[in-house]
């Protein structure tokens, strides 16, 4: 790190795209977990991680340097000084949807556990094939 040029480059990257690369890593972590994990509960948790990554992505691009929360406070009505509130509103909907999906998933998982006595994919498939 003796070269100041490299340091600038890294600083610059982290300042502009750093948060997006973290979101990308989170997204693929979720996808990876869903593919690799054999346990249905873990698969479902990985699914939630992936959904959260998408929500983070929306919140990240809504940010603006020096922007304040979008509330009419009597100081200014200039839209350039406010951050964009619409992605937050969209993500409220997405969070509700993700809650609903998780609820349905857990309900189905409880039924699977009752029927097959396990949430491990290998056990379940073995038993399901016997039927």
């Amino acid at each position, binding site marked *: 790190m003796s070269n100041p040029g490299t340091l600038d480059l890294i600083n610059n990257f982290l300042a502009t795209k750093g948060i997006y690369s973290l979101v990308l890593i989170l997204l693929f972590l979720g996808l990876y977990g869903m593919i690799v994990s054999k346990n249905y509960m873990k698969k479902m948790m990985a*699914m939630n991680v*992936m*959904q959260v990554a998408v929500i983070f992505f929306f919140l990240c*691009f809504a940010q603006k340097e020096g922007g304040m929360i979008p509330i009419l406070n009597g100081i200014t009505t200039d839209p350039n000084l406010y951050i964009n509130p619409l992605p937050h509103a969209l993500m409220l909907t997405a969070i509700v*949807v993700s809650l609903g999906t998780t609820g349905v998933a857990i309900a*189905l998982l409880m*039924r*699977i556990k009752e029927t097959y006595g396990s949430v491990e994919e290998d056990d379940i498939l073995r038993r*399901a094939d016997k039927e």
Partner: protein
Amino acid sequence: MSQHFPILIVLLPLSAALLSPFFSYFHRQAGKWVSVAALAGAFLCAVGLLLQTLQGGGQAIHYWFGNWEPPLGIEFVVDPLNGFIVAMITFVALFTAIYSTPFLKKSNWLYMGGYYTLMSLLCVGLSGMTLTGDVFNLYVYLEIASLSGYGLIALGGNRGTLAAFRYLLIGTIAASLYLLGVGFMYAKTGSLNMADLGVLLQAQMDSPLILMTVALLIAALGIKAALFPFHGWQPDSYTFSHPGAAPLIAGAMAKVPMYAMLRFFFYIFGAQHLFVQHGLFIVGVLGALGIILGSVMAIAQDDFRRMLAYSSVAQIGYIAVGLAVGNLYGLIGAVLHIINHAVMKSSLFMVIGGIQYRFGEFRISQLGQICKKMPLTVTVLVIAALGMIGIPPTNGFFGKWYIMLGAVQSEMYVYVAVLVISTLLNAIYFFRVMENVFVNPPANLKEINPVGKFELPLQMLIPIVIFGVAILALGVYNGVLVNEIVKLGLPEVFLR
């Protein structure tokens, strides 16, 4: 009143979905009648809406929610194209709701009410996806349709629960990818309205972000439509779903994402751009592979429902090829096939559901000479099978014919070859069914549900016959449909 048709299509089944368990509590049948009445109302509204757009010469009808002007507000946009598709969805939903009543004969009020809640919600989600003019709104309706779809699949028993859970995992990946694509488009333009996006994106179509968006949309809508190779969830889901709901799930649920793909690629992005052409090429190749592999897999199945599920993979491939061809004939073929396949696949699932209801049997090898026991049902089975193979005057022929015409016009002869081969493969697996039904020695079938005077309860028999007639009618009147309805809805570039 008539200016509120677009919202009534969604609002009536939505209210019925919320009221159905409540009414069922007081009288076991009441919730059912509320739902059926609401779906009938939605169907009438959809037909009225389609007639309105046709009277306006194909001019799109815009319905603003709360009178907020787009692009700030959410709107429903109805042109002859999606008016036609939403009429088809509500038609299938209405008759599936009537058809499924005998399956619920012995269930308690909660099951009854819940079933009709899910059925109405599925219709809400699918119609909303078709009508909406807002990309985020489409995501919400997509999730409504998916969640109710998971519920209906899980009602099919133990294997159904397992299939529903696996579909839920994959379906959520699709929804997240779609949302990511919406995020990219929003970050680029600051708009979510489809018409507005269509204008704003034109200047930025060579940005790499659009390439990512196209890829994400193909993956997301491809998973939802069970386009090969994203079809892993589909055979189990169709096979083990509730037999009463299978016609709606198999018939309508996978077609609407293909319609959304058409809307995105041809109306919002515009097919003349390089990235969209790449995307359409990939969709076409996947579709062609799906046609061949889906048909081959269908031949290998003994379970009738699973055979139909694999044949759905092939039929989605036809629509994909129609989009990839991308000229006037290709698009007409794709749209016709969305409608036709929904009707054909629903009627086939109704037929096997009827056989399953009466005899508890769904293996093809066990259907020997069932034609003597259920003559009307088998007649519809034959009509629908001929439609799937593509023999005139059934409707299946015309969708394929237009796609082939388009492929010849664009000199994409590989697609022509694929379509011809797939017709042969279709013939193999449907003639195998017919051989069992007509020729093979009578199978030893035990009636598990006694039926009255007719071969099936009337609630099942009437929808089956109506769908059989619809297959023939859509085929015979297809010239009128294409000239008077479908052509009016296509993008203007094609009509010059």
